[in-house]
Structures are given as structure tokens and as C-alpha cells.
């Protein structure tokens, strides 16, 4: 089998909920050995029953959301209220390259697992601490979840239609924070490989959202304007919107940037009389009159399916793509050919389709290779094989409730 890009990297993963686990899962997809440290007393949020858990949920080992955010990982159980468990956690850190955690700032210190302690245990350790608003500053103890990150990061205010309320995105804000964490860890790993130096990374989930709307800040700092919601519109391009298609709630997105594209669109629509109207004679006028323009284009798209419009327009070099539903993504021939989803056999849930790794490496493949672990599934491997504890000691630790 080909070598995976992060083969040989081990991650001691203390994260939970969404933003932390997906960060280390990204490393796991690329071949890192990720050891999730949890406990039966305090399982990961996503192992627990909740509104969002879905109809397949059946307990901590039968939680589809947990599975989806912890693929390719291992799990050990340690009751961190026990001093012996903390010592074992340190032994896992000693044989790891990376530590990741997303508790409220200060919690790891209280557990006796702060960076200052861990760098004594493993001097070149890279430790990522991900929190709601960062580990410094007056609000460092504040807590949050994806929707509050989106709100506090300035994104919710910019998301929606001009006449609608702001929209705090849901889970995707956690995964954006996670992707940023993965990048930050990889840069630190690269530095460590060059210099032998480890370090601590303090990441703010709120800030990970804010940097993704960077130009909105410059609009304010340069020109004093506060940008707000713009729906599907663009500042320059028109047409630039979604257009209704034949079936109910089916839509196609069309964006036109150049005169050439506009001409091709007109021609494909059969050059109806209205396209010659002075109101639509140049890009500026089309932008000014885009409401009427959108209505007229919609009278053409309504006769077709989104895919039909895409095929007609892409053939002549116009950017048209359906607004896919989740279901349609699984039926799309392009995504099918690219293998965007993969079936995983889970011992408690059964067959489960999951979204695959979002990159294709030509030499070092990276993909989903195993289900999200059962609670403590790898206690034997980690405590026995990796740490070399004798069997009777492991049994004693289980009996004492340290490994639990």
C-alpha cells in the first residue's frame, strides 16, 4: 500500500463536540494515528442523544454524527478525575507528536495537562488549543458553539437576503474552525521537522470565521461602510442569481461576467425580443435592472430541469450549475465518478455512507479507511501494545475505574 502523507504522526486527541474532532479527523484521513481520549463517564457530545442525533441514534456506540466526525480514529477511555488516568494520558502524550484539545481555556491546566506540563513530558510536542474566542483577552473564558462563532465572527450578519434576518450558519462553522486547526498544526509540524522545535497554538474559533470574510473588514476600515446581506447578488455581475426550474424548489445558479457570456446566454435562450431592450444593453444596465432581468431569465429556466440548463449553458461557456439538494449530490454522475462518498461498515450501525476526504493526492492517497471508534475500542492496543503495560496491570486499572 502507498505511504500516506502523515504516516508516522501520532495525535493525542482530547477534543470533543464538532470543531475539535473534525480537526484531528482531517489528520487521520491523511494517515496520522489519532488516539481519542474519552471516558464513559463523560462521552463526547456527539455520542449522546440530542435533537440532531438522527433516527439511527442508539447510544454512544451507535451515533452517526460521532461516526461522521471521528472516522479513521482510535478510542481509549480514561477517567480524568483519577490522578492515575492523568499519568496515563501523559504517557500517551510522551509517544505522540501532537496534542489537540478544545476545552474552555484553563481546563487542561486544571487537569494537570496544560502546555507547560506537557512540554516537560515531551519537549517537542505541538499542542493545539481551540476555544470559542481564544485563550487570551478579557473574554477568554467565554463559551460557544458553531452558531455563536458565526454570529461573533461577523458572518451571520452578512448571510441572508437584504430583507431577511441574519443567518447564523450551523455545523459548517465548526468544520471551518476545524480545517483552520488542521492547517495550523501542519505548519507547526513542518517547522518541527526543520528545527526540532515544538510549540503551543492558541486558536479562536470566532476568529477562524472572521478571516473568511476579510474584504468586509477592509470595506469598513478603508471606506467606513458596514457591509450587510446581499443574498445571491454580486457587486458587479448580473445576471447573478438562482433561477426557478420545472419542479418545485428546483433551482439553477447562473452567473455572467463578460459580454461574451451574456451573448451566449441570450442565444441559448433563443434570443427573445426583450434581450434587445435598452435596459439590458450593457453590463451596468443589466446590473441596475437585474430584478426585471432575473424575472425574464426565470421565465426561460422554468421550462427545464436544473441539469438541462447546466448542460445547455456550459456547452456555450456560461457558468450555470444546479443548486443541489443533499439527496441530489448522491445521485450526481460527476460526484459519483469522483468517489465523493464512501460506504463504511460500522459494527453497531451497519453500512453507512460518509463524505470522503476532500483532496486527491496523486502519490499518497488519503481517504476514509475505518469507522468512528467504539468507546474504548483501542484500550488494549494503546495501553498494552503502545505503552507496554502488562495485562494484569491493565485489568487492575479497569477494575479501579481508571481505564473507564
Amino acid at each position: 500500500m502507498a505511504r500516506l502523507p502523515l504516516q508516522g504522526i501520532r495525535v493525542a486527541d482530547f477534543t470533543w463536540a464538532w470543531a475539535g474532532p473534525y480537526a484531528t479527523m482531517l489528520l487521520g484521513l491523511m494517515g496520522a494515528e489519532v488516539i481519542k481520549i474519552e471516558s464513559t463517564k463523560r462521552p463526547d457530545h456527539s455520542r449522546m442523544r440530542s435533537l440532531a442525533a438522527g433516527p439511527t441514534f442508539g447510544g454512544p456506540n451507535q451515533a452517526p454524527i460521532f461516526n461522521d466526525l471521528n472516522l479513521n480514529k482510535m478510542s481509549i477511555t480514561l477517567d480524568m478525575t483519577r490522578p492515575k488516568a492523568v499519568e496515563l494520558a501523559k504517557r500517551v502524550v510522551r509517544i505522540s507528536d501532537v496534542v489537540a484539545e478544545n476545552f474552555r481555556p484553563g481546563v487542561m491546566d486544571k487537569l494537570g495537562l496544560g502546555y507547560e506540563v506537557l512540554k516537560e513530558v515531551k519537549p517537542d510536542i505541538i499542542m493545539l488549543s481551540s476555544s470559542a474566542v481564544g485563550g487570551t483577552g478579557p473574554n477568554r473564558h467565554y463559551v460557544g458553539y458553531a452558531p455563536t462563532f458565526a454570529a461573533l465572527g461577523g458572518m451571520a450578519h452578512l448571510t441572508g437576503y437584504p430583507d431577511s434576518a441574519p443567518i447564523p450558519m450551523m455545523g459548517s462553522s465548526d468544520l471551518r474552525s476545524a480545517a483552520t486547526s488542521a492547517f495550523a498544526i501542519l505548519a507547526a509540524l513542518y517547522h518541527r521537522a526543520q528545527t526540532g522545535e515544538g510549540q503551543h497554538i492558541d486558536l479562536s474559533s470566532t476568529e477562524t470565521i472572521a478571516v473568511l470574510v476579510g474584504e468586509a473588514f477592509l470595506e469598513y476600515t478603508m471606506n467606513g461602510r458596514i457591509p450587510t446581506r446581499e443574498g445571491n447578488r454580486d457587486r458587479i455581475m448580473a445576471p447573478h442569481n438562482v433561477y426557478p426550474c420545472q419542479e418545485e424548489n428546483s433551482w439553477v445558479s447562473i452567473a455572467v461576467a463578460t459580454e461574451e457570456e451574456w451573448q451566449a446566454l441570450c442565444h441559448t435562450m433563443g434570443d427573445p425580443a426583450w434581450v434587445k431592450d435598452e435596459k439590458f444593453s450593457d453590463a451596468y444596465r443589466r446590473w441596475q435592472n437585474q430584478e426585471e432581468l432575473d424575472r425574464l431569465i426565470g421565465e426561460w429556466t422554468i421550462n427545464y430541469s436544473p441539469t438541462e440548463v447546466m448542460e445547455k449553458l456550459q456547452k456555450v461557456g456560461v457558468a450555470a450549475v444546479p443548486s443541489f439538494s443533499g439527496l441530489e449530490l448522491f445521485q450526481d454522475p460527476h460526484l459519483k465518478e469522483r468517489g465523493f462518498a464512501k460506504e463504511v461498515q460500522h459494527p453497531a450501525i451497519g453500512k453507512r455512507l460518509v463524505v470522503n476526504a476532500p483532496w486527491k493526492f496523486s502519490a499518497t492517497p488519503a481517504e476514509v479507511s475505518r469507522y468512528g471508534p467504539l468507546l474504548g475500542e483501542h484500550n488494549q492496543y494503546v495501553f498494552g501494545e503502545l505503552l507496554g503495560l502488562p495485562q494484569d496491570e491493565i485489568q487492575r486499572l479497569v477494575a479501579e475505574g481508571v481505564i473507564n
Partner: protein
Amino acid sequence: MAETALAGLKVLEYAQFVSGPYCTKLLADLGAEVIKIEPPGRGDEARRREPFLNDVPHPERSGLFFYLNTNKLGITLNLNTATGKKMFKELVKETDVLVEDNQPRVMKEMGLDYESLKDINPRLIMTSITPFGQTGPYRDYKAYHLNTYHGSGLAKILSYVLPDEVKRPLKGPGFIGDYDAGLNAAIATMAALYSRLFTGMGQHIDISKQESLIALERVEIGMYGNEGDSMMSTVMLSGMVGGLQPCKDGHVVLCLPMEHQWEALIKLMGNPDWAQDERFKDELDRAQHAKELNENIAQWTMERTKDEIYHQAQALSCPIGAVTTVADLVASEQLEARGFFVEADHPEMGRVKFPAAPYRYSKTPWRIERPAPLLGEHNEEIFCHRLGYQKEDLVRMRAAGTI
């Protein structure tokens, strides 16, 4: 000055607008040397994009271009000319990474696809970012940010919360989906670089913007693949306690999945009688009666400002966030204390204030060394001092439209 994380790393960028430039900006800001190649004359598409300083459209005054190209060197090169191609290959020979965002067939037609370039530099890591990836029936399809966002399924997911009369699929704000693809590409690029330390081998990375975005809603989208529908679209949104609520001067967002957080909210609201009702006993009860419950919460939030609610809630560890504007963030004490905004001098724009990075490294800090490059600003430095051309050559190349 402290060392940077990516010191010594050489990156070549042949990309425009947001995704490719954001990918290499992430590397440049951590110390990599990024040489940005722009087409002569017009330059990067982002130079023609708002916001412009004082609303004067000018290729050296775009805030979008500035933000996405900090810490880079800029050169101009026309890759459609034989000389341009030759010089490009000379640069490829010396680089660790090439990031590009052209249609797959364009790079092939120019003879600059990975298969051709790896012969020049077997250690090359080439990262290609396109709307639909390098393979599959849509590989050469055209898509702007609007189209990739809708094509990923994320736009329909965003529309769940809209009232029925305006329920149309909605793109994310600004160019967020393009930033997402750039970040995703940076992750893969760093992993390939790490791998190369041990294998000595370069490789080609295929990044699809569509798949970069799908990954961000993997839980929601995965449910469609298995259940044919999602909990988020049905139960979750109608049954969520809190969510977005109006207040005196805007909105707040409440997200209270844990029992103790619900208890904190009740305490925050001063233990109102209605909260003791049997119907609101546990999470599933509350979900059943979420509409009524949220009306009660809204009555309370409406009488307060978003900042009052935010800070008072957080004092009780109740996860509430204020819906902030960019102005709120620029004025934020928290961000100020963390040095989130930095300033840099630009020859045409003067002093510009912009967001730095969302991470603080204890040893290798993010830093701003130079603003975004002017068009062709480093032609002489790269072509003469690096590749060994004469200054007179540059004059002739300019006349020939090569640079």
C-alpha cells in the same frame, strides 16, 4: 525577530481571485516565499474588485486583492508566449510548491500540466484548485463562487431557516466558499510537503471547490445519503431552543444543547414562572414546544441590547453570542487584546488595517513583512537577480508582451 514556521519554503502561484491566492497567502503569512505570477497588463481579477480605497476603482487600490496577497512577491508573465513558458519552467525548477487554478484542459494545452512539469522538477508539489476537480464529466465546466456554492448543496442548507415565502437557496456571504477551498488546498499542500521530507517525492494534488464545500456540511449531507432526508432540516430547526432572537439593537444567537446551559438561561432571565412549566422539562419536551418557548425568550431579549445579553449570559457560562457587524469587531476589546487587527503601509493605499490570523503560535508568530505587491513589482528582483536575465532583456520582454 522570531523565526517563521515556513521559512525557506518556496511557492509559486499562478492563480487569480480568491481560492488560489488565499491558499498561498496562508503560507506566505507563515514565512514561505510566495512568488505570484500575474498576466501582464490586467493582473489578477481581484484587482478589479471592491472594496476600493475611497471608492476609486484602481488596480492598486483593491482591498480584496490587498487582503489576499499580503507577504507575497509579484511578477508578471504571459504564459501564452514561448519566452513566458520558458521562464515559468525556470521558476518551477526552483520551487517547492506550485498552486494554480486554471481549467484542467488549459494547463494541458499550454504544456504546463503536472505530467510535463514533474520532469523539470520531480520534487514539485503541484496543487490544482478548480470548481469540479481534475477528473469527472464536469471537470472543465465554468463556475464562479455563486455556482460552486450552489453546486455543493450548501446553498439549499442555508435556506432551511428562511420563511417559506422567500425560501430560495442562498449562497454564503462574500466569497466564503472560495476561501474555504483555498484553506482546504493549504491543508493538503502542507501534508504533501511534510510527506516529501521523508519520501523526497513530489506529487499532484487535485482540489475540487465543490468537494471542499461538501466536506463542511458532511454531517448534514451524509444524512441525506443514508436517511434520504436530514434531521437538521426537519426536527432541529423547528425544535431548537433559542437560535436567532431579536434584541433592542440587533440579534443574539443562543445555542444550549446541555441541561446546565438551559438552567443558566433561566437564571439569566431571572427565573421566570413560565420556565417552570412541565412542558419545558427536558430537551425533548422543550423541542416539542420550542415555538412558544422561543416567544418567551424573545420577549426577554427584546428589552436588552445584544452586548448586555452576551456578556451577562457568558458570566453564567450560558453559550450566547451577539450578531456582530464588522464595525463591532473592529471595536471589540477581545480582538484588540489579542491583536487580531494589524496595520501595514502600502505605496498606493497608505496605512491599511486588516485581520491577521486566527491562531497564535508560541514560537513562530504570524507576521506582516510586506503588503500585497504592485503589479510586476518584483520583476527585476526575480528575473534579473534570481534567473539571471539582464535589465535590457526586461525592456525587450515588456515590449514583446511577455512581462
